[in-house]
Structure formats: structure tokens, C-alpha cells
């Protein structure tokens, strides 16, 4: 980051070192630096400009970088994503936002039929370096379509990559990394975590390059999963907002002498199969936790990858603790729907108490 850059509201001016930032601030900081470092990067969507986004992720960016770099669009998600394709053809690096996860549905044709396929259709001559930011998942008691878990849908589409950070540090580094990629990345931000603070290591000026070269960044490679907590008895696999909940569960389980490892998958496509094999190879038991509905969810994919690599040593079938096969419920029922501490503990119990035959 350039030393002459002006800090945005709410962020201290220090150019490097570790700072306590909320995920919202970390994302805002990352976008600010992306705009400063890449003249072809453009940010746009509904209310991204003057308002700074409904979650304020783009706060202050238009005032600082100008209306050509950060702009408001009319209210039309297909338009926003279709426009991204044309901008990418013209050599730009679009960073569009859909305001809430459920509003990605009106744009699904542009995402699936256009963004995901243009590189293939054009035999690699028209790459789509698009980072689509999607405030994702539930937990904020929002109206219908303002809390959805679309990861399995996106991950199933050939041509898309999908990532979800769980901490402010990862949000900062993964967003910078995603925006430097030549392929489309769906960046799923756990909106219930936007206001949680955590340490963000700003020392690494060029995290994207470091990660791409296979180098470590803050002790973890940005291209794969991250061990959020080490443990011996069982692995909880999670992503997004569920990582923090699994860490809570691990603390509670520790009181009963159960040593839980928490693997933050981070990339939902490509999934870090090696990290799954390493973790579950060690613990020999696994529970996958996600907010999305059970059936055909990513938990099934994770369970299969674990089975494939660890079948001989697994002590129990891989368990899943997930949302249910129902439309995402209203705020009053949200706590019943999203995997809570008790349900995850029951999942752990099922795995620990499994007996063959």
C-alpha cells in the first residue's frame, strides 16, 4: 500500500503492522488498496457509490477514487453482472456487488451462462477477471431473500470459483487475492460477521503475489483451507459464519475432554482436498457444518472427499449438521434453522458414539 494513501473513515492511518479491524473495515481497506494498485479495477452495484453500500463495505471509496472507479448502477442485478462481462472484455477488472445473496438469483443467467463460460467459449481469449461480492448467509434476521446460502449452486457451475472468509484477516487477504485472479470468483461475505473485530496483518503488501507464488501469508496459504484450531479427536469442517460457531463449540467440547480441530475450508471451489485428508487423517472423525440446506449441499461433497482419502481409517461415517430443506425462514425461526451449538454438539456426539454393526 502506498504510504501517501489517505486512510478511510474508521481506519487508523498506519500503513502496516497488525490492526484490530472489523470485517467490514478489512474489506473496505482491501477494496481501497485494490483500486489504488490496479488502475483497471472498477467497483459498482446498487448504492455502492455515495451511500457506500448498505453494509458500508464501499464506504468512502467513491469520494476517494472518483465516480469512474466506484459507481452506482440502476437497480437490476442481471444488468450489473451482464455489464461486468462487457467491462471484462474491454480489459477492466470488475468488482460488482449484489446487495444481498437472494438477489443473485435474478442475475443467474449472466453468472452461469455468461461470466462462467466466456473464457471457455472464447477459447481463453476473453478471460473474466470478475470478483462478485455477495453478502451471504443468514443470522441478521433480515427479510426474505436477504439471507441465503448459495455456495453449492455456485460451486456446481463449471467456470466459477467460490470463496468465503471467516475472519477480518482472511477477508482482507482473500479479497485482494481474488481480485488479482484472471478467473471469476464469487466472494461470499458472511454478513453476520461484518461487525466482529479481529487482528488484520497489513504487513504483507502484496498478499496476492505471495499466495500465488505458493508463499505463506500470515502462516497460511491463501489458496487453500486454514486450520482455525488444532485438535486430536475430531474435525469440524466449516466456512463463513459457521467457523466462529464451531470454534465456540470446540471450547465447550474441550470442557468435556474432547479435543476438536476446526478446519476453515475458505475455498468452496476448489475445495482443498489435501487439507481435509490431512486433518481427518489425523483425527479420524469429521462433522461438516453449513447453513445451507442438507440435500445436495456442499457437506455431501466434503464428506465424499473425506471418504475417498480416509475411508480405511475413519472411525465413523462423516456427519453433517446443516440447515434444513426448507426455504430460508423468517428471523423468528432463524435460530432454529442455522446450526446452533447444541445441534453441532449432537453431531459430534453421533460421530464419537458410532459403533460398527
Amino acid at each position: 500500500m502506498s504510504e501517501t494513501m489517505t486512510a478511510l473513515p474508521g481506519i487508523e492511518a498506519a500503513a502496516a503492522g497488525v490492526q484490530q479491524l472489523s470485517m467490514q473495515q478489512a474489506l473496505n481497506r482491501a477494496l481501497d488498496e485494490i483500486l489504488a494498485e490496479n488502475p483497471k479495477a472498477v467497483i459498482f452495484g446498487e448504492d455502492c457509490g455515495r451511500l457506500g453500500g448498505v453494509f458500508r463495505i464501499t464506504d468512502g471509496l467513491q469520494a476517494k477514487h472518483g465516480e469512474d472507479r466506484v459507481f452506482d448502477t440502476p437497480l437490476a442485478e442481471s444488468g450489473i453482472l451482464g455489464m461486468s462481462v462487457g467491462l471484462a472484455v474491454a480489459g477492466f477488472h470488475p468488482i460488482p456487488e449484489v446487495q444481498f445473496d437472494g438477489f443473485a438469483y435474478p442475475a443467474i443467467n449472466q453468472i452461469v451462462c455468461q461470466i462462467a463460460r466466456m473464457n471457455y467459449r472464447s477459447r481463453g481469449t476473453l478471460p473474466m477477471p470478475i470478483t462478485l461480492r455477495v453478502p451471504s448467509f443468514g443470522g441478521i434476521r433480515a427479510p426474505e431473500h436477504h439471507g441465503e446460502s448459495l455456495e453449492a449452486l455456485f460451486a456446481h457451475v463449471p467456470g466459477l470459483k467460490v470463496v468465503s472468509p471467516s475472519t477480518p484477516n482472511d477477508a482482507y487477504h482473500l479479497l485482494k487475492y481474488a481480485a488479482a485472479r484472471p478467473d471469476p470468483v464469487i466472494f461470499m461475505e458472511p454478513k453476520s460477521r461484518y461487525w466482529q473485530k479481529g487482528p488484520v496483518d497489513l504487513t504483507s503488501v502484496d498478499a496476492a503475489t505471495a499466495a500465488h507464488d505458493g508463499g505463506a501469508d500470515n502462516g497460511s496459504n491463501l489458496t487453500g483451507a486454514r486450520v482455525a484450531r488444532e485438535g486430536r479427536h475430531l474435525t469440524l469442517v466449516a466456512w463463513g459464519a459457521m467457523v466462529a460457531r464451531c470454534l465456540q463449540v470446540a471450547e465447550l467440547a474441550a470442557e468435556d475432554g474432547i479435543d476438536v480441530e476446526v478446519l476453515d475450508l475458505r475455498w468452496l471451489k476448489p475445495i482443498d482436498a489435501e487439507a481435509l485428508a490431512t486433518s481427518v487423517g489425523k483425527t479420524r472423525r469429521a462433522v461438516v457444518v453449513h447453513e445451507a440446506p442438507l440435500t445436495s449441499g456442499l457437506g455431501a461433497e466434503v464428506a465424499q472427499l473425506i471418504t475417498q482419502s480416509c475411508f480405511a481409517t475413519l472411525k465413523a461415517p462423516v456427519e453433517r449438521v446443516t440447515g434444513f430443506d426448507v426455504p430460508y425462514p423468517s428471523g423468528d425461526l432463524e435460530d432454529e434453522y442455522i446450526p446452533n451449538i447444541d445441534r453441532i454438539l449432537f453431531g459430534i456426539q453421533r460421530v464419537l458414539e458410532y459403533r460398527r454393526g
Partner: protein
Amino acid sequence: MTTKAVLAAVDDDAAPLTHHQLRELYTLMAAVRHLDTSAVAWQRQGIIPGYAPELGQEAAQVGSGYAVDRTRDFVFPTYREMGVARAMGLDMVGYMSTHKATWHGGMYNPLESRFAPIQAVVAGSVLHAVGWAHGQTLSGHAEGETGVAMTYFGDGASSQGDVHEAMNFAAVMKAPVVFFIQNNGWAISLPTERQVAGGSVAARAAGYGIPSLQVDGNDVVAVFEATRSALAHCRAGNGPVVIEAMTYRRGPHSTADDPGRYRTLDEERTDAGEDPLERFRQRLLDEGVADEAFFAEAQRKAEEEEEAIRTGIEDLGPRPGAEMFGLVFQEPTPALQSQATAWREESEHV
């Protein structure tokens, strides 16, 4: 039609087409006509699995494509723009390879040809054109220097929401984009009157504050002039233009279609009007721009060209299977790489 009233201001300096250009337009139309009718025959002969003919739309396609400046403009087609492609000088074996089922999107280079890959979601590329055009604005070209996006779609596609979003976006952002509608009367089996509310597609432009014009799509010179005016209008920084070229799809929607189920041969003859190629030929004769020897030579060249393209696509072998895996991403995923490895080991196409 309404061309001059709307766009005359930026079109005052436009010179009339020279005799050389008029003959060039005819040569292109003859080449497109022959290639198009031949492609239908190729399908019947089993050379290609399918084709979407454009018989009767030669004037709309050649006239508009001829106006495009290939050094700075960019065209976003759907799948029935063979005549535009030919007028823009694309590698036609590369273009036809999509109909040969060699590669979705064709085998030409979109960046060099300024012609985006062929695709089937008909309104999808209309928004791409708006994004590309806005990119020209962001790039800050001097007035009169900007590239213009041309997007092609039909009366059927105009029913899709993306066209509405595209026109609204373009108007709000004053994007240099020409919405070129070929209204050929039919969206497969549905006639325009049951497809397009409000009388015409051009009429919709008024709702967005976009200047529009309907043009006789069977008059190649009128189409060229309308497109040239629209491009000049966009280049001068005045925002988008809608052109609706009124033409007629004389043949089936595709080689799999049976128009006999939704229109009679008599209706076809009556509604299609004058053949645009024959009409232009008569005009060139009447005006002394070309003679029978010229037409014979144009036909000879068209046949020669078609033969070379046919040979080219017949010689196209199947693509190496590894491309299926190698062209999905710029940075392939480990899972995809392991699927490619498994495919290599398990198949005989090593």
C-alpha cells in the same frame, strides 16, 4: 422512416457511398447469400449438424456490419449474424466451426476480429455491449474517437428482461452502444405482432429517452447509412441509439425447424417482400454502377469462397479432448486437473 429527423445533426458530413463501395456491398451480399444457402445444403449432406439460416437478412447484416470500424468498435452477436461476421472480415471457417459443432462460440479470435463469441441466450450479449461501451467512456477517449459497441438481437430477444435492463443502463450511463434489432418477423414460430407489444421494438426506445429509428432492413444502403449515423451519434458522446431494421426471415429458424407448421408458402411469398439481393442488383444496374459481368464475377467469387470454407470445415478434425479441461479457467483447479488426468488414463484418446 425516421432516421434523418433524429440523427441528422451528426451525419451532415457523411459522404454518399462511392460506386466502389456499392459494388463491395453487393459482393458481400452475394457471398453471404451463397454461403448461407450452401450451409443449409451442408447440413442436408451431413457436413454440419445444424445451422441457423439468415436468408432474406443479407441487407440488414451486411449493411450494418460494413459500417463498423474494426479498429475501435466491437460487435456482440447472438447466433444468426453470419452476414455481419462476413462483412467484418472474420475467418469464416472459424465462424462456421460453431455450426460444425467443433467449438461453442466459434474458433475465431474475438479480440482480433472485434466480434464476440457466438452464443445462444439471445439477450445475454446485449448487456455485454453496454458494459463494453461504458468501458469506452471510462477509458476517456477524445470526443469523436470512442469505440462503439454494436449489439445484435431480434424481435424475439426484445421480449427478454435483459434488453430492458440494457437499454435503461445505456441511457442512464450515456453508453456508446448501438442496439441493432433485426426484426425478421418471426421468433421461431411466433410472429412479431404476438411477440412485441407497443407496435415496434424501436418504439420502446422512447421510454428510455434513446433516439431510435426504423429502417428498411431490405435496403442495404439505407441500413448502412442508418448505422453510420448511429455510430457517429454514439462517437460524438450522445449516448446510445436503437435501430430496428425491418426485414423478413425467408427460411426456417434453423435447419431443425419446419415453418410449414406456422405459415404457408403463400404467406411467405407475400410477406417477405422483395428479395434484398435482387433489389440491390436491380438498383446497381439501373444506376449504371455495375453490369452483368460484375454480377457474374461476384457470383463466381462467392462460389469459390464457399468452396474454400467448406473444405476448411471438412478438414476440421475433432478438437483434442484436453481442451475440454484446459480452457475452463485461466488458472485450472486441482480437481479439474485430476479429472483431466483420469480422462487421459481412462480414454483411448491419449
